[in-house]
């Protein structure tokens, strides 16, 4: 393994998915008991993964023999091979190609240093795309978060028909981006079903060019994204809600707390870790948004309609324009931005979860 990967690996170690590996000891580990007692979130359950140091992990402490070594090699060999060849290697190659002006034929020979990167950051279209990404990040969090919490609370109530509602609410999440994109682009065009419905309801004055009007398009996109991904947020929150002990809410109810007081004072704080993990996934997903925009707006319309993203910019100006070196440089920029956001988020937001786990132990 080369040095760049090692650095990346190390810098990602603190991210929510890989909590301090054995022997690191720098990050305070939540107590195993606490984590198993309240698997209230994916964060809590994943944090058990690596917190277990050598002392806790099953298996014998004596040195491993050749037999075990062979088993390890046999069992991990194939996945390591596939993973290194089709994930790590291409990512490293993206960084390498990014320094060349290269059109995909033969070996890249025209080394241009940082020129690709300078060009990207000076290109107004890219800056626009970056702003669109930022808008999508904010709108996804603001629109999906509160709605999904309410939905999860609703679906967590014991009432008739809840299983049916649960299945139906997740339908959009399961449908492919292409189907969603095709459907919505037909529905939202100026002579589409949405405007037709508005006219049938006597609200014809509200009819609009939902997709091509630059003032509206980003809102349409946010609406479609909310519709598509709210099911995922709801699945996560439901899983989180089911990890909250009923005793707590029952005790609060006995003490005379109203339903909304219970949700506000008990459920929401306990759902915190799940919420933060969801927000993390949502932010990263929004930064890398590609499919829906590319399908609905296509590579040319998206920039004029104000919905282009960094990823659509990458495909348009990289592969489709034949500038592979440039496209790879865009990929690197996209990756660096995602990584920076992820690390900042980890540093300032997710750290609270570790602190929460610590206070949980001392209590």
């Amino acid at each position, binding site marked *: 393994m080369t040095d760049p990967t090692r650095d990346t690996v190390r810098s990602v170690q603190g991210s929510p998915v890989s909590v301090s590996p054995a022997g690191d000891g720098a990050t305070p580990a939540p107590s195993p008991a606490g984590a198993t007692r309240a698997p209230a979130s994916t964060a809590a*359950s994943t944090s*058990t993964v690596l917190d277990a140091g050598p002392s806790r992990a099953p298996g014998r402490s004596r040195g491993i023999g050749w037999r075990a070594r062979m088993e390890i090699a046999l069992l991990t060999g194939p996945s*390591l091979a*596939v993973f290194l060849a089709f*994930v790590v290697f291409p990512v490293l190659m993206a960084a390498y190609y990014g320094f060349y002006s290269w059109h995909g034929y033969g070996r890249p020979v025209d080394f241009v240093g940082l020129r690709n990167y300078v060009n990207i950051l000076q290109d107004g279209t890219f800056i626009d795309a970056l702003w669109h990404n930022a808008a999508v990040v904010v709108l996804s969090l603001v629109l999906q978060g509160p709605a999904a919490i309410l939905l999860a609370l609703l679906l967590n109530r014991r009432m008739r028909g809840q299983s049916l509602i649960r299945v139906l609410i997740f339908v959009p999440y399961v449908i492919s981006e*292409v189907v969603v994109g095709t*459907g919505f682009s037909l529905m939202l065009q100026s002579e589409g079903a949405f405007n037709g419905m508005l006219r049938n309801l006597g609200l014809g004055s509200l009819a609009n060019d939902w997709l091509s009007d630059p003032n509206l398009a980003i809102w349409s996109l946010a609406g479609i994204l909310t519709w598509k991904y709210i099911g995922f947020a709801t699945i996560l929150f439901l*899983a989180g809600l089911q990890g909250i002990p009923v005793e707590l809410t029952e005790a609060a109810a006995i003490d005379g707390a109203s339903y909304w007081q219970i949700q506000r004072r008990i459920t929401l704080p306990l759902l915190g870790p799940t919420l933060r993990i969801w927000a993390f996934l949502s932010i990263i997903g929004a930064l890398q948004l590609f499919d829906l925009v590319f399908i609905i707006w296509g590579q040319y319309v998206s920039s004029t309609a104000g919905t282009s993203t960094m990823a659509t910019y990458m495909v348009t100006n990289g592969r489709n324009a034949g500038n592979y070196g440039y496209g790879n440089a865009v*990929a690197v920029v996209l990756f660096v931005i995602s990584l920076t956001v992820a690390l900042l988020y980890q540093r300032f937001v997710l750290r609270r979860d570790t602190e929460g786990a610590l206070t949980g132990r001392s209590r």
Partner: protein
Amino acid sequence: MAATTIDAPVTYRRERGLPWGSPAVYFVALLLIGVMLAPVVYIILGGFRTNAQITVDPAGFPGPWNLGNYVDVLTGDTFWQEVLNSTLAAAATTAGVVALGLMTSYVLARYQFRGRGAMYSLFAAGLMFPVTVAITPLYILVKTLGLMNSMPGVILPQIGFGLPTTIIILVPFLRAIPTEIQEAAEIDGCSRIGFFWRMVLPLSLPGVITVGILTFIGSWNSYLLPLFILNRESSFTLPLGVQAFSSQYSVDTAKVLAFTSLSMIPALVFFSLFERRIVGGLTGAVKG
């Protein structure tokens, strides 16, 4: 299909007197379902209309109902070829991800060796590498390997990119299997590999199913990778097919809607069968 999964628990709960919610709650729930399902219903119903009907009233119901579009799509070759390609890609990806992920997670969860933490971090770091970032070099790599327009060209990268999530979900499952069970098995003369087959597999089944479903649906719906790798129409998967169909028949809206609605059925069936497992699997941990 959905009915069977839903009916049983409802009747089970009714005995214990599952309360009716307040009318307001049901009203909100109904409204929500309406919003969530309206676009899907539009796509399905639109397939039963004619283009003339759609032009006159874009938001109306079919009247008269017209089966022609669906029949056309179902009797054509392209649709079935694409269903076959998608099924093949999704099944092979799922099998690969589950098999490789389970093997690796087993080692990471239950073997003691130097470099274990590093290996876990390596896979976990994979979460930070989305296909989007690696797509161009991946395309070149697949081209160099001569796998363009072939299913392995899509399947292998998908397995690679599916591994991080799988390992992160499965390792806690495998670790949660009590050491006592393993010791008891060892005393009974079970090797570590035997323990893997006889104990680990059955006990981690909920996690495996969750991972399997997520991978299958992910592969069934994946767009960017096939877009780069599969250029020949005979190798298209359904998402590419839907897009190609909708640009080819852009004036025939009704037919596009019929094609689109048929292409989403398998993922929907698959999901409604296993929905409960997904929510359960995300909550994690083996009880026992």
